[in-house]
């Protein structure tokens, strides 16, 4: 006789056994081995008929089931020595232990899957290339114009307004900085560093006055062709370097 059984792909012998146990609503601790073995073998045959890949592991399980079955058929031996008598080990124990272990991870896998579904809804930003590279810095003044420099200058002033530097706009003060002084200061910085960023020049300045004087000094140095200025693209850092001549 043949059962009409719907055959699906099983991940392995435990998956199939597990399916049978659930389908038959069997107590996992009291598996009717004969019945399960019959059903298991029927599934294997059905799988072979529709050309599902029945790997050797499925067949090993048949052997295991048959072994358990035969052990259970054997009469229980009475131990002669009463003291050594111990509770008869159920031949199904090992199988049950492994089934439970497998079941544990089968459930966990489902839990992981739903966690994964949630985080697959997150989007990340593509990584920026944070390389402050100087691709051939030979053409210093190329693509530079006064507008860009003035834009950058505005930005510096705006940044200072945001609180990082103490700017006092109301008080009139005597000019305490001279362009000559600032030219020397810039040249001094460049003599130790060779290359500085535009922002760097204005980093530690304390007043609007000093910022303006430094900017004028920088313009003067450019005019005298003592320094060169380069910017690789819009809004990026402006590099200032000494001109060797």
């Amino acid at each position: 006789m043949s059962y009409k059984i719907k055959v699906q792909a099983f991940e392995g012998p435990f998956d199939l056994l597990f399916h049978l146990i659930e389908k038959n609503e069997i107590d996992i601790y009291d598996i009717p081995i004969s019945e399960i073995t019959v059903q298991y073998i029927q599934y294997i045959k059905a799988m072979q008929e529709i050309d599902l890949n029945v790997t050797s592991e499925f067949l090993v399980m048949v052997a295991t089931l048959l072994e358990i079955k035969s052990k259970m058929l054997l009469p229980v031996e009475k131990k002669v020595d009463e003291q050594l008598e111990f509770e008869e080990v159920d031949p199904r124990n090992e199988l049950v232990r492994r089934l439970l272990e497998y079941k544990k991870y089968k459930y966990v896998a489902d839990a992981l899957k739903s966690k994964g579904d949630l985080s697959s809804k997150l989007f990340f930003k593509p990584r920026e290339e944070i390389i402050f590279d100087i691709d051939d810095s030979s053409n210093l003044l190329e693509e530079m114009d006064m507008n860009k420099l003035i834009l950058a200058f505005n930005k510096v002033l705006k940044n200072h307004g945001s609180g990082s530097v103490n700017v006092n706009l109301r008080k009139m003060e005597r000019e305490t900085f001279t362009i000559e002084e600032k030219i020397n200061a810039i040249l001094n910085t460049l003599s130790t560093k060779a290359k500085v960023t535009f922002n760097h020049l204005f980093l530690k300045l304390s007043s609007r006055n000093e910022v303006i004087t430094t900017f004028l000094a920088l313009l003067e140095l450019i005019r005298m062709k003592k320094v060169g200025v380069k910017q690789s693209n819009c809004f990026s850092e402006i590099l200032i370097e000494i001109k060797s001549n």
Partner: protein
Amino acid sequence: MNVEYIKAIIEAVLFAWSDPISIKEISKVIDLDLKTTERIIASMIDEFNFTKRGIQIIRMNDYVQLATKPEHHQYIQKLLEPKQNKGLTQATLETLAIIAYKQPIPKSEIEGIRGVKCDRALSTLIEKELIEEKGRLEKTGRPIIYGTTLVFLKTFGLNSLNDLPPISEFQLLTEDEEDIKDLFN
């Protein structure tokens, strides 16, 4: 530097770096001790979640990264091509679950639990950078042992391995199920 300013810098760094970055690295960038950096980032994570912001900071072990929130994905989906995240097969997921809970673990032990060979699943998992080799066992054949990666934590939205769903819960759950079944029999 006040805390608000430090938070702004950290946000800028996370934004610019985009990839996961270690808290230690951040502490070096802002020149602050690790403990304080940890504390500030923890409070940032709360703030980003609490305030109605479009982005959040996700944490994986000692790494943090900016990401959008799941509730906005339908809008972003309209712009970006759907993620090519073909889910893992049941076999691969089971293999991954075993590794996650029992790491570091050699292949033979995984196969013992699943009752089938799992070379295919392992190579898929390695390819997807969800697991990696963690060394070798000092026994016959010196078998490779496997463990999960940072990508694993990220993929499954876990802060650390401690966030894995507790395995005992499942056992309890299934015992409850048995009880319920008994009631109806």
